[in-house]
């Protein structure tokens, strides 16, 4: 099993979730994060005091998938989150050694 961590633009969240849903992945855990990268933030002025907001609001999706789902999941995310503009985000994949569903104690692909 793999853990996909995707960082995308907040207003794309619904699209990505729908795309994942379409390929049969309903479980997602979402966190609001601040992103730093190539895309630049903006400058705010408060009574003339400059305040450079160099982070950008992003959302992070964590999705545990089976090996078989991995590629279609990645494709689904890339397709739905892409705006062709800088700052669209990244996808990271790490190996998942174990997954357990707390309610039932099920493990492995069953637990997803």
């Amino acid at each position, binding site marked *: 099993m793999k853990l996909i961590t995707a960082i995308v633009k907040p207003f794309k969240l619904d699209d990505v979730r729908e795309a994942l849903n379409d390929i049969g992945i309903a479980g997602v855990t979402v966190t609001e994060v601040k992103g730093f990268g190539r895309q630049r933030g903006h400058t*705010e*002025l*408060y*009574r*003339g*005091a*400059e*305040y*450079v907001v160099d982070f950008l609001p992003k959302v992070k999706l964590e999705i545990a998938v089976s090996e078989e789902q991995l590629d279609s999941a990645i494709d689904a995310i890339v397709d739905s989150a892409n705006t062709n503009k800088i700052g669209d985000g990244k996808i990271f994949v790490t190996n998942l050694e174990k997954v357990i569903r707390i309610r039932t104690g099920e493990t492995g692909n069953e637990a997803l």
Partner: protein
Amino acid sequence: MHFIKTIKITKISLFLTLFILPSLAVADELNGANTAWILTSTALVLFMTIPGLAMFYAGLVRSKNVLSVFMQCFAITCVASILWLVVGYSLAFGEGNAWIGDFSRVMFSGIDRETLSGDIPEALFAMFQMTFAIITPALIVGAFAERMKFSAMLLFSGIWLLVVYVPVTHWIWGGGWLAEMGIYDFAGGLVVHITAGVAALVAAVVLGPRKGFPSTAMPPHNLTMTIVGAGMLWVGWFGFNGGSALAANGDAAMAIVVTHISASMGAFTWMVIEWKKFGKPSALGAVTGMVAGLGTITPASGFVGPGGALIIGLLAGIVCFSATQYIKRVLKIDDSLDVFPVHGVGGILGSLIVAVFASTELGVFSGYGFADGISSIAGQFSIQAIGVVSIIVFTAIATYVILKLVSALTGGLRVDSEDEVQGLDVTSHEETGYNL
């Protein structure tokens, strides 16, 4: 204001009758209408400080210090009220001499429910004045926010009230030497805004900047709170300036008109400047301009007309905007919430410019005339200038001395550096503002 306006009629006698020995003013009768309006005004001016000013300031600090600002405003309200009752009112409005009142009204002694001050109950006059004595030290909070020890803050505010605010009030509204000269200060440009503004500047310099200033960004944590507070200040100011007529009549009405117009124009001007200069008008800019407009019209509000108010608001926007930039960007003084450039500079501007727009000869920009015995803009202006300069100098020196004294008594004015990083809410009050 209060004093000044009446003195024009029969200077000394009225003064004695109305203010120093009000209980003897048996000939006068209670005017219920005026009483009703000043009761309302008193509520409005208290409303300006809590929650108005408290919200205005608290929204501007970082969220780790939000409660500390509220706490400072509340604690000052309590302490100033008690001090005013015990001795402040007596020293400010007791007969005394040209410099200070006396102890005849200590603990409001001699003030009964029937005692009048002019045609309103003296208890009401003293109470209305109490709300001014509350807001003035509370204004200074903006200068030392986010770093001053609570104990030092409390001690400073109490001493400052008695040593600076009380005598200045006596000079101008209590029949003191500036009143005698015919100075114009309708609702507290000198008494309130200049004293608070100058004290703020001195405090900011003596305390030093917040850790990280000016390199670290310290954006307001909740501008919605600040704007709501600003709205309350605007509304409450109707009681501040309109109530200073001490009557429900055309003077009060016109004071409210000019107050409102100057606020509108100040806000609009600040907005336009930001729009031109930075490309976008900000809400914080608009409300800051509004406060500048209000502060600036305050000393003039009983003496100028709507046309004059329009110009005063315009100038308030321009001058206070420039002052803010200058203090923060050029002098790099961390007067954290811009008390001096807004209130101090606005108060100075308004206290001087009233000499122009009080003139009855400016057509649509005319006002309602100079003080008794004064016949030219220059004549009034020179008196105003004397007042402005002497109050600046007196306030600056006295504030400096008080701060040094308090520092000695409390082992330093500032919280320690770690507490400052962690925030005053937890370290000074063991609370947090938000657990959303």
